[in-house]
């Protein structure tokens, strides 16, 4: 089995599952309870928060646990918009964000907010000059993803953060879901105010995520209730999944240090091998792109059938982001990059983790060539 769909979800590390099971069965107390079991659970929660904060170079008080990336993104966008509405009603984001950013933006548009969507060039990057021109007196939020989930392009987050320091009224949110553990990002250096991460994208479990909120940034809560997470996110804390997430983050960052050079080797080999196939156009640029995402198009062949053909050989890739893979729509990101309809409709994504190897590549490439041949025969 060759699993190449790590941007959809990753396989949890066995140690992460072990932590989950231990906490769920032994330390099952509610962290808000005053008794011993409750205090143990709270201790575990505090330790996880401290450990995660340390890994990210921020303060524990700046970490809010959520149910995942979607909640964190919704919380960041709507929380900022509703809290800072008195300052203005203009939001800037990009044309290639994940739906958990664009959909809340659409919702805010219905509520009277004005949202600008920055374009990207043919390598999938935003242009700083366009950003400068888009900023207005009533701009309250800029939200830009670090690593794009479909093609892997990396945005110049540090440069943007630096620029935004000239506009003290604007908050800066970064969707770091695909970047964490793969492309380093220093929150302070990049002047980030809010940052989203999701456990199941770095070998943690689904149902846990993180919103970093810089001290001093106020946020109107998305979930009201018992006042957990320093009054900002109510709901009994998912302690077992949070402890597991802290472990997954620590292990992922260790893997990064040990294996990032190897992962780049794997990616470069993938691109070289794919480029050698006549019917494949590689969409992911080598410059300013993440080490784990490779997007290519099949010259108009049906990518969905291609995915199923590969699955028969136990090789798992995806057509586009998992969240929209059931819709038969062309890739929004590729269209934004200026690709034609045919190219945008036949896109395939290979997404890697540190577990993938060079040895897998010839096997997968052979299967891909066969699948393409089969598809061409059918089409003829």
């Amino acid at each position, binding site marked *: 089995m060759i*699993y190449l*769909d790590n941007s*959809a*979800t*990753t*396989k949890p590390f*066995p140690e992460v*599952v072990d932590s989950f*099971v231990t906490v*769920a*069965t032994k330390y*099952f*107390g*509610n962290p*808000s*309870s*005053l*008794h*011993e*079991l*409750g205090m143990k659970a709270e201790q575990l929660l505090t330790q996880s928060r401290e450990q995660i904060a340390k890994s990210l170079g921020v303060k524990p008080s700046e970490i809010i646990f959520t*149910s*995942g*990336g*979607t*909640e964190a993104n*919704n919380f960041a966008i709507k929380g900022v918009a509703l809290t800072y509405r008195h300052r203005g009603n203009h939001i800037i984001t990009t044309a290639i964000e*994940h739906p*958990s*950013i664009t*959909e*809340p933006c659409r919702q805010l548009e219905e509520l009277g907010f004005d949202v600008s969507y920055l374009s990207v060039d043919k390598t999938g990057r935003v242009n700083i000059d366009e950003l400068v021109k888009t900023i207005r007196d009533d701009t309250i939020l800029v939200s830009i993803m670090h690593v794009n989930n479909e093609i892997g392009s990396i945005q110049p987050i540090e440069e943007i953060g630096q620029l935004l320091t000239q506009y003290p009224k604007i908050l800066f949110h970064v969707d770091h879901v695909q970047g964490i553990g793969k492309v380093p990002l220093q929150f302070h250096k990049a002047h980030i105010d809010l940052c989203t991460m999701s456990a*199941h994208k770095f070998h943690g*479990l*689904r*149902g*846990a995520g993180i919103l970093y909120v810089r001290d001093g940034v106020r946020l109107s809560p*998305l*979930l*009201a*209730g*018992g*006042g957990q997470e320093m009054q900002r996110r*109510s*709901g*009994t*804390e*998912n*302690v*077992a999944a949070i402890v597991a997430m802290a472990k997954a983050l620590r292990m992922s960052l260790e893997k990064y240090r040990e294996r990032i050079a190897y992962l780049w080797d794997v990616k470069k080999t993938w691109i070289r091998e794919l480029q050698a196939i006549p019917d494949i156009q590689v969409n992911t640029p080598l410059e300013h792109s993440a080490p784990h995402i490779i997007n290519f198009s099949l010259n108009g062949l049906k990518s*969905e059938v291609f995915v199923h053909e590969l*699955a028969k050989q136990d090789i*798992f890739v*995806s057509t586009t*982001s*998992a*969240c*929209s*893979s*059931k819709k038969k729509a062309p890739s929004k990101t590729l269209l934004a990059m200026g690709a034609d309809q045919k190219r945008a409709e036949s896109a395939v994504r290979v997404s890697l983790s540190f577990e993938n190897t060079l040895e897998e590549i010839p096997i997968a490439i052979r299967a891909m060539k066969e699948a393409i041949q089969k598809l061409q025969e059918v089409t003829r």
Partner: protein
Amino acid sequence: MERIYLDHAATSPTHRDVVERMVPFMTEVFGNPSSIHFFGRQSRQAIDEARAVVANSIGAKETEIIFTSGGTEADNFALAGTAMANRNKGNHIITTSIEHHAVLHTCHYLERQGFDVTYLPVDEQGNVSLDDVKAALRDETILVSIMFGNNEVGVLQPIKAIGELVKDHQAYFHTDAVQAYGLVPIDVNDYHIDLLSVSAHKINGPKGVGFLYARETVKLSPRLYGGEQERKRRAGTENVAGIVGLAKAVEIAQQTMSEKQMMYRELKETMLSVFDESGISYFVNGNQNACLPHILNVAFPGTNVESMLVNLDLAGIAASSGSACTAGSVDPSHVLVAMLGKESERIRSSIRFSFGLGNTVEQVKKAAYETVQIVRRLTNR
């Protein structure tokens, strides 16, 4: 020292079978249910099966179940989701003064958004009056939200009668069933319930997952936007292992319901009989004729909550002052205040014991003796 956990209403241990069922969905069937490949489809199938189990448990259709991150999200979703989507029909909401904060704080938020919220009182036994509900209903009422069983005192509300009352009104009927679900049979059609919230970790399932039942006729605006999961009503990659764990917990709860009802009633009686024998003075809070079997809220005159809890904890007994979510705060329980008034001594001397998986008669007897000793010590008798 043997530790005795009598705080199952705060959270409950995850059942071994639940954890066992979950693990393969983390290690083997880990695919994203939206992915079209084999891994994704396996996860999708697991969610579909779980949804059938959950729907079946309350007589609902599978399409009417929305998985959430827990009870708080389900309550927030039910209230804010219906309020926002039905604003054109009216801006009045009816709830009670003894709801969980996930409901109450959402109502406060909605008031700031221009909605008019009526908070019904309860009598000193914790009962909501049907006449009050009737009197509060207006033409512009769009939602009635009344909890099934209270989390602090366990009092069950006349849900079926309220359902009957609201069924011919435009208002939807939501009930927070987080404490009642799994211990009381619930049929949403029989009870005319339009929306119902459940949390997994109160029924020996995992934390971080729950569901909202929303009748197919209910107009609901999403709270989380993004991918098209949960039929476009709740975005976010599905917590497959959590959902599968929830379904397993539901199965166990359904199978063991009557057995647990009897067991917990026996535990309650055991505890009270030790109190009776000892001669200490105590009051049971809440109508015991319509009460969840696993919750026992007792006032011990002359004691105060904090020293009771500290002493109980030192004796190895985990109990609580009210809901866990308010346990951290020094404010007296809003539920007891609503029942007994701000001046009542009982709001400062009441302890909640809640029973669950693993508790035995011996444990409860021991906890009761310890409690008696602590009460005697604190009241100098």
